[in-house]
């Protein structure tokens, strides 16, 4: 009963607005409940803060701060940044005098370390006849030791090329005691230079070209930029600065068949197919030596006789090159004696005429006086080891004949990458016991008896011999993540079991260290130094003592702190003959191999730039790094010349069968600009069958196409037939269109040296913007800016990997790239420059017309958030998640971002990245995982343990629905500010080098300069004011903070 009922009974109209007592009470009850609900203070989630139990003394200042360790990966010294005991970033080692460089592989080694598909411990594999069974080191170590003893000389250790003195010593000790034989080989072995030098000078110590000293470099299929670990990038970039009086800009002319990264950086490129490069080199030599009678070989009869068949006209006709072009090039070389350098050594040298190619280069260098002028550094030369393929072939023969009882494999995967002719897997079946020390159940380990996984180099002790007489210690930067042992540890253990005194001493010392009783109450004792550590210490004690250094204890730490050690005792390799080289007359007979009748179509097998021999196939970073030239990710393609591609009526991705006679593969086709019409190319290192969840089945394995001939693997000049196989496999490109008309789209400043010398601002022309609607930001103190020198940038892509490592950028996978949703904050855009044409071009950016892409001029441009002054993204965010900071940065605040994506829409540079998917944690709902298969794929790429250990704790890990972009490494800027405060310095300005973003740190050539543009005398201020500097899209008035310095092409012959 309520008041309205009462009123009704009284015959009155109900009062619509009346709230009677009961209603009021009901309502207040609801209100009270609501109020209680709403105002209930939630208690914060309880978070633990767990300190050390017993903090190591030397970590006193290390809490929350990075620690750095020198070590060596793959023969290149690196500096590894670690946090809380785990490595998170690989950087080049400062002050490294070895002359080595880093490739993308080195920077991405972290992902190999944290690869969840590594074997977690020893396994009994039983040659894949059933499930693998976990085994144990306690069982394996003595078992293998006794087998080695029993097998004697019928035991073989197969490894990759060994550059570690300690490992060599351990293997030698083992061999001396048990008769074990050692075979070393590499699927990418290229011994042409060694062969040529042995014939020419009697030794295989190939001198190192000094690119920084030459005014003119001619590359005969040179690939020094494709192999950055050889360390030529810095030297090459050192001579790319225009307008210098002391060291004028050098000129680089490349002759090659496939457009390589090296060729893309050339000032002039001449297409010559691989098999004809040797002949063309000989033709140039003919022109200089026989026709113009230059150099010391002009008077050597054998030289003239050997060169006689290679007259320019003859060769030009056979090779399909313009004879006039060759003559002009020869003239260029002749005009610069003592200043010109000829470099070979690329994939073309793996062909049948490889040694002849190298010899032609040698002849040219001798003729041009390069040796006398010091352009070839013999002291820095490397002793090339050859014969690996022959040894492997012989070994396989022996195995097949039952002559091998025990086969131990370490760091090699011949079932995957040996030439098909060797039939390694069949041979392996005949071996009684096969032990694999590889890190996972790869193609070879699946056919082994036991997999005893060796630790990653980051987890184990070893050492490395480096060029320039340097030696480095490879120290671990983390305890082994899984139950693995270091390779050196294993070899020393077995040598000890076989009775070698040094190994026994090391094993004994390690065992004794285990017995040391820690102080009472202390934590479980730290694992004792490994057997390898003791072995190394003993060997290094001898080495250091012989160099006269005092206490080994301090000397050892000094070496670790410095990274490398100069072996003063190493004799200088100088021989009179090498410096006043008289080529042995018998060498010239090699040239006959240069006369190759070209096949209709020839195939080149080149190592994939990121993946090399494919051992890191499961590395998401490397798979996702776009190839600098083809822009392909997650797989490779059969590169075909544009005209042939069009003639065959192909589209990108169409499947084509490549038949080399002895093997054939089917691969998707790619219209490769700059490819010679009669050459095709396939990348090596893809098509792994068993490397893990991430990389298996990506791409096509081209190793079987390699041809075994005379103990060498021929990887270029292989005669093939092409056939359209039908079907299409979409190629995952990291970039869209290819050709850029800079008249219509002034996106990349570029010019020629002639134009630059007339007007320094040449190349930076762009449509001007009008007045701005916004008042300018004022910066009285620090203002961050960046300058990117496009002459120094060679497109290698290490900045991309460095950024990915530093900023916890996820891997999106093939499906993500196909969706056009990459996550990398910095990308290298590669354009082919459309030459000026009467009437202009129809559109500004598009896929290539033949006249541009047959012989393209390549432009590389690192593109990242420009931190615009008038950022179009800042004005449109409805939640103010992105705005400008007081020091010039465009900030992105993840916790405000809701995910409208308006900012990315507005960005004219398209550098904003949106987390469409959750890359940071598992999706717990099974229903969601069933509903959307990509969720599981993303998790497989990013979230499986121990992958998250690679994350940098200073950078937020973004979740789904959040926008991200380059932050100019805000974490490093904040750290610098904090350090400045702590040290009592003012923060008004920062000097050069105070803040180095990850991209700049990774860049080998110094193309990226970052700093405070308001600081007087800062490098970035000077570069931003340089006439070559251009800030992009002035027409839109965005006013970027990044200046691009125009790429200047040296057109002055």
């Amino acid at each position, binding site marked *: 009963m309520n008041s309205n009922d009462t009123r009704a009974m009284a015959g009155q109209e109900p009062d619509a607005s009346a709230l009677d007592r009961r209603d009021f009470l009901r309502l207040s009850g609801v209100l009270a409940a*609501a109020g209680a609900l709403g105002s209930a203070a939630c208690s*914060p989630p*309880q978070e*633990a*803060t767990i300190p050390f139990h*017993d903090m190591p003394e030397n970590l006193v200042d290390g809490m929350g701060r990075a620690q750095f360790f020198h070590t060596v990966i793959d023969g290149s010294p690196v500096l590894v940044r670690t946090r809380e005991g785990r490595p998170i970033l690989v950087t080049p080692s400062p002050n490294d005098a070895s002359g080595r460089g880093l490739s993308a592989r080195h920077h991405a080694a972290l992902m190999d370390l944290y690869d969840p598909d590594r074997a977690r411990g020893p396994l009994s594999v039983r040659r894949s006849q059933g499930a693998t069974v976990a085994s144990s080191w306690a069982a394996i170590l003595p078992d293998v030791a006794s087998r080695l003893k029993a097998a004697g000389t019928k035991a073989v250790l197969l490894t990759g090329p060994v550059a570690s003195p300690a490992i060599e010593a351990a293997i030698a000790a083992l061999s001396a005691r048990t008769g074990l034989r050692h075979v070393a080989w590499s699927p990418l072995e290229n011994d042409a230079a060694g062969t040529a030098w042995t014939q020419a000078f009697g030794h295989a110590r190939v001198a190192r070209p000094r690119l920084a000293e030459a005014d003119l470099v001619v590359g005969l299929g040179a690939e020094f930029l494709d192999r950055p670990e050889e360390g030529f990038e810095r030297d090459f970039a050192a001579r790319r600065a225009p307008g210098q009086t002391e060291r004028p800009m050098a000129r680089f002319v490349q002759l090659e068949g496939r457009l390589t990264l090296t060729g893309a950086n050339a000032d002039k490129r001449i297409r010559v197919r691989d098999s004809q490069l040797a002949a063309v080199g000989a033709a140039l030599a003919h022109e200089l030596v026989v026709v113009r009678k230059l150099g010391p070989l002009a008077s050597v009869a054998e030289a003239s006789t050997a060169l006689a068949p290679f007259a320019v006209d003859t060769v030009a006709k056979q090779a399909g090159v313009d004879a006039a072009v060759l003559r002009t090039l020869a003239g260029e070389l002749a005009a610069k004696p003592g200043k010109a350098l000829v470099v070979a050594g690329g994939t073309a040298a793996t062909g049948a005429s490889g040694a002849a190619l190298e010899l032609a280069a040698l002849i040219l260098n001798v003729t041009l006086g390069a040796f006398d002028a010091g352009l070839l550094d013999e002291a820095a030369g490397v002793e090339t080891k050859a014969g690996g393929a022959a040894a492997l072939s012989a070994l396989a023969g022996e195995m097949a004949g039952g002559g091998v009882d025990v086969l131990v494999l370490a760091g090699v995967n011949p079932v995957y990458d040996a030439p098909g002719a060797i039939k390694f897997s069949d041979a392996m079946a005949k071996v009684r016991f096969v032990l694999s020390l590889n890190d996972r159940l790869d193609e070879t380990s699946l056919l082994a008896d036991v997999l005893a996984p060796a630790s990653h180099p980051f987890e184990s002790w070893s050492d490395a011999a480096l060029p320039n007489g340097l030696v480095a210690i490879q120290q671990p930067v983390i305890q082994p993540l899984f139950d693995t042992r270091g390779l050196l540890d294993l070899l020393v253990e077995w040598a000890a079991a076989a009775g070698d005194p040094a190994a026994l001493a090391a094993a004994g010392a390690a065992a004794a260290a285990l017995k040391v009783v820690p102080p009472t109450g*202390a934590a479980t004792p730290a694992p004792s130094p490994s057997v390898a550590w003791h072995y190394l210490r003993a060997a290094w004690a001898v080495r250091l003592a012989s160099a006269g250094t005092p206490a080994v204890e301090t000397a050892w730490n000094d070496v670790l702190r410095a990274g490398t050690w100069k072996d003063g005792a190493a004799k200088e390799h100088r021989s009179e003959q090498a410096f006043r080289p008289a080529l042995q007359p018998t060498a010239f007979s090699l040239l006959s191999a240069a006369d190759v009748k070209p096949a209709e179509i020839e195939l080149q097998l080149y190592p994939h730039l990121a993946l090399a021999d494919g051992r890191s196939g499961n590395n998401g970073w490397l798979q996702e790094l776009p190839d600098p030239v083809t822009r392909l990710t997650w797989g490779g393609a059969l590169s075909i010349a544009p005209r042939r591609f069009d003639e065959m009526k192909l589209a990108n991705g169409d499947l084509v069968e490549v038949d080399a006679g002895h093997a054939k593969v089917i691969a998707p086709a790619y219209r490769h600009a700059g490819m010679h019409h009669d050459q095709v190319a396939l990348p090596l290192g893809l098509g792994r069958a068993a490397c893990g969840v991430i990389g298996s089945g990506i791409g096509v394995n081209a190793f079987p196409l390699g041809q075994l001939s005379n103990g060498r693997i021929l990887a270029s000049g292989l005669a093939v037939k092409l056939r359209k196989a039908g079907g299409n496999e979409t190629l995952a490109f990291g970039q869209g269109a290819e050709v850029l008309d800079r008249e219509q789209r002034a996106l990349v400043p570029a010019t020629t040296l002639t134009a630059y010398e007339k007007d320094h601002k040449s190349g930076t022309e762009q449509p001007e913007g009008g007045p701005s609607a916004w008042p300018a930001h004022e910066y009285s103190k620090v203002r961050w800016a960046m300058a990117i020198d496009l002459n120094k940038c060679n497109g290698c892509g290490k900045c991309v990997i460095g950024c990915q490592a530093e900023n916890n950028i996820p891997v999106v996978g093939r499906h993500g790239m196909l969706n056009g949703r990459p996550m990398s904050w910095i990308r290298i855009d590669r354009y082919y420059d459309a030459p000026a044409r009467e009437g202009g071009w129809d559109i500004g950016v598009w896929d290539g017309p033949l006249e541009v892409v047959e012989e393209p001029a390549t432009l590389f441009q690192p593109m990242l958030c420009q931190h615009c002054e008038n950022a179009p993204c800042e004005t449109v965010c409805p939640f103010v998640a992105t705005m400008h900071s007081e020091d010039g940065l465009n900030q992105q605040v993840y916790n405000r971002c809701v995910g409208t994506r308006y900012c990315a829409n507005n960005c004219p540079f398209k550098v904003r990245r949106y987390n469409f998917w959750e890359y940071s944690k598992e999706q717990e709902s099974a229903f969601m995982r069933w509903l959307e298969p990509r969720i599981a794929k993303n998790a497989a790429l990013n979230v499986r343990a121990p992958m998250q250990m690679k994350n940098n704790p200073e950078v937020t890990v973004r979740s789904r629905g959040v926008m991200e972009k380059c932050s100019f490494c805000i974490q490093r800027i904040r750290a610098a500010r904090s350090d400045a405060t702590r040290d009592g310095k003012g923060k008004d300005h920062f000097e050069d080098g105070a803040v180095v973003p990850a991209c700049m740190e990774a860049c080998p050539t110094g193309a990226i300069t970052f700093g405070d543009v308001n600081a007087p005398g800062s490098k970035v201020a000077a570069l931003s004011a340089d006439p070559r500097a251009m800030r992009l899209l002035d027409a839109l008035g965005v006013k970027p903070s990044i200046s691009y310095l125009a790429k200047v092409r040296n057109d002055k012959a």
Partner: protein
Amino acid sequence: MSGRKRPVYLLAALGAVVVTGSLGYALSNVRKGYEPRQPILFRHTRMAGAPVWQTNAKGEKVNVGGFGIPCVYCHTMPYKGRHSTVPSTAVCMNCHTSVGLNKEWVLKLKEYWDRGEPIPWVKVHDLPDFVYYDHAAHVNAKDEQGRPKLPLTDANGKPMVVCQNCHGKVEEMEIVSVQNAFNMQWCLDCHRKPEMKASTDCVTCHR
């Protein structure tokens, strides 16, 4: 309600929930007053507090107060890095291998030490993960004259450690509790003061 649809009541109820809820959320503070129980009843009063001398029954002078141990003896990192650190058990054992072994909590501590297990302290001053706070930048902050920006004297003019600006008088706390709001508004209260010349850019804290 007498059978007639009264949407106004439903709306009022919803409105009330929203208003009270928002007001409640805005006016409440999850941090101030937070006083979590720790695995070991460590008393800052005893360690860091001021000494209080008394004469006991035997006529000896005993200190029933604290030892006046400075904050940085244990919390070593605030002047050096981003994080302040809770000391490792070894720091406690510097004294407690021999001192106080008849006390309940010292024995508990020793148990952790003997077991080799780190002590799972509950984080009292816990900021959300998207806040990157930097201790060193705050405790070391100095103005142009070189004077510390954060005051070193309390409201009564007595000298104090710089830590007490935010953490309060920890040496008077039996159990550590949060003395201030520790929300963004509270941080901005100081950051916005002109004399502090502190940055209010978002990326200062929210990277």
